[in-house]
């Protein structure tokens, strides 16, 4: 069996899905791409058992067959090959694949396609459509706040909740939380799923720049994303998501409004002087002044800065982990933000002043206990 394909085209498609393949998969066959050839179309599948990604491209061929090709060798060969049409010949009896190029011939030992795990089907699925722009925004706004603690699987993914009026994306690591809501995506039936971080990362990297439509189908165990010529199917995290609405304080009346860039750059400077492993900084808000300070007792380093802000409420002192706060602020796209506080040991709400037309963003940071000195 033989087909002709552009080397750069093939590489581009493989790059979309290559991230799925793990370095040390449970079953060795998963180090391969599955090539399925059917007349003029080549379907390539990568999988890590929890998720699979499928891409399709047009080729010149008139036969049918499939084979599993070692991913690493193939990708490296294509990366180092100048752009040109290449001829790929596959021998299904000896499981080998040969690439003929202007530069020479490369023969790869392949494996039987039948050993490659079947990609699951999604049955009894609900379906929604979302624009790539909305999905990309939802992912970038939430994914950074997910947890890496494997002992609490629910928090390693992003929670997506559909309702009749809106769709909510939530992420948290137990110390901070992001709730990203869109009113331009809705579904007649209420449902919720937890999508693993890896799947969302893969999606983010392969979403096209031009705004098109992404179709999401899901049942309680799997979700299926489809756009352009790419499909992604992943197993969902089957856990109960923490009760996030319950921890959002409603009576935070101590309001601070401040320029985001001022606060962010101040935090970046001050945190240099905080303890490197705990990154704790102290906010002291008096009148219309915010004083940020940090000290590292091990090295006797200390720093403090004063920023002017709009403040409505009692004077307060509260401690935060600067690293978490910097990440949070970095992901907000607003010139001004409001910080709503209540007490030094209760959650602080951080809300961007300006949001997109259909967006509603709320973030929350838990303070660190500070000793009143």
């Amino acid at each position, binding site marked *: 069996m033989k087909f002709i394909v552009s080397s750069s085209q093939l590489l581009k498609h493989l790059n979309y899905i290559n991230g799925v393949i793990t370095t040390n998969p449970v079953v060795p066959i998963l180090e391969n791409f599955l090539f399925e050839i059917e007349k003029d179309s080549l379907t390539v599948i990568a999988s890590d058992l929890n998720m699979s990604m499928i891409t399709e491209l047009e080729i010149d061929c008139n036969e049918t067959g499939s084979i599993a090709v070692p991913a690493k060798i193939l990708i490296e060969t294509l990366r180092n090959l100048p752009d040109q049409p290449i001829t790929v010949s596959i021998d299904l009896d000896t499981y080998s694949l040969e690439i003929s190029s202007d530069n020479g011939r490369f023969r790869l030992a392949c494996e039987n396609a039948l050993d490659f795990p079947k990609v699951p089907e999604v049955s009894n699925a609900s379906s929604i459509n979302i624009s790539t722009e909305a999905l990309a925004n939802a992912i970038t706004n939430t994914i950074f706040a997910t947890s890496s*603690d494997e002992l609490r699987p629910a928090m390693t993914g992003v929670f997506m909740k559909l309702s009749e009026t809106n769709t909510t994306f939530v992420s*948290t690591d*137990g*110390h*901070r*939380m992001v709730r990203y809501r869109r009113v331009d995506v809705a579904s007649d039936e209420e449902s919720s799923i937890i999508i693993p971080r890896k799947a969302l990362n893969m999606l983010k990297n392969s979403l096209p720049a031009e705004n098109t439509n992404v179709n999401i189908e899901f049942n309680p165990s799997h979700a299926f994303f489809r756009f352009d010529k790419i499909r992604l199917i992943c197993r969902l995290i089957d856990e109960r998501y*923490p*009760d996030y609405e319950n*921890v959002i304080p409603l009576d935070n009346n101590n309001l601070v409004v401040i320029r985001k860039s001022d606060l962010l750059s101040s935090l970046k400077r001050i945190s240099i002087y905080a*303890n490197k*492993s*705990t990154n*704790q900084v102290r906010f002291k808000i008096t009148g219309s002044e915010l004083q940020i300070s940090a000290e*590292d*007792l*091990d090295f006797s380093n200390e720093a403090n800065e004063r920023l002017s802000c709009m403040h409505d409420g009692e004077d307060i002192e509260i*401690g935060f*982990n600067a690293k978490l706060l910097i990440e949070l602020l970095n992901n907000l796209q607003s010139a001004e933000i409001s910080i709503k506080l209540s007490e030094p*040991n*209760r*959650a602080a709400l951080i809300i961007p002043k300006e949001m997109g037309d259909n967006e509603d963003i709320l973030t*929350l940071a*838990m*303070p*660190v*206990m*500070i*000793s009143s000195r």
Partner: protein
Amino acid sequence: MGALKLFNTTDAVSRSVLHMDLDAFFVSVECLRDRRLSGRPLIIGGRSDRGVVAACSYEARTFGVHSAMPVKLALQLCPDALIISGDMEAYSRFSGMVTEIIRESAPMFEKASIDEFYLDLTGMDRFFGCYQWASELRHRIMKETHLPISMGLSINKLVSKVATGEAKPNGQAQVVKGEERSFLAPLSVRKIPMIGKKTADFLYEMGITRVNTLCEMPVEMLEAALGKNGRILWNRAHGIDNSPVVPYVERKSISTETTFENDTIDVKKLRSVISGMTEKLAFLLRKENKLTACISVKIRYSDFETVSRQSRLSYTSSDRVLIGRALDLFDKLYSKRLMIRLVGVRLSELAYGSYQISLFDDTEEEIRLNDAMDRMRIKYGASVLTRASSIFADPATQHADTQELYKSF
């Protein structure tokens, strides 16, 4: 030669190091707290059968009692001795008072242990005599804290420490520069720090009893007999010690262990003891405004086989997290159906910081409760209140010999 004078090397290495040591520190504190105790043979240590002497008064020492000796044996030597179980908290409070006075006065100091200090006074003799200055500091400490303290002054830590030992109790001594060798020469080799009973016995067998003899031996011979330590020993015998006064030694871990009066197999009791010890350590951590990233649990079976296991955490000082993890570790560790003699808990990888409140695990009530508990402990002492689950299942074990260890390395 004129150029050489500029870099007067002898002057650069000529240091003035002061060693200060509180005399029978734990005993002195007890006497301060109860006047009736002074002048009596006192032993500080566990009351139980297996307790060891942590400290003893000079009166008890005349009977041959010394620290690290089993209390049982000490009582045979000195049946009239009074046994006090000791109050680490009070000791560290008094130690802190002394430290503060030294911090105020000295340019640079090292706190070597709870009752020992090294001060680097190099250069201060240009203004007023080092010895005069040190002597005034010593008297100030005695006047303000009422604790007896001895000191020794010389050109390095080693000789100063030996000098303090010679000056004790309640005295002061100076070894003038150049006199180090003649000062050490007539002393017993046991007086040199690092020579313990084992090394001393070994040296006695070789016929070495005085430092002088050690000095006269060729260094190669000592190296052949004692390995790497031979040369260090030889240097020490000559009064050579270049180790610097290290200003501040950060405490790298805190730990505590409990030896049971009777070996036990009662898992409920063991878990409760571990939970209590962890709670105590966690409070200590919070009091110093620190967090830990590593907890380890140790058990010693009755056959003295000792096993330990550790677990990493994200920085925390929460009772709930630490106790939970300690008990988990214990369950994994306790695999043999054998009696247990000792359990220990240790928190390491400490860093400055306060507890990061969790969104879902901490309730506001819990945060407030813990805060209130800590306030009470700070005001009335660490043992004023504890979790019910940490109260030992068997009242007999309340006398178990619990020792807190502060380690810096």
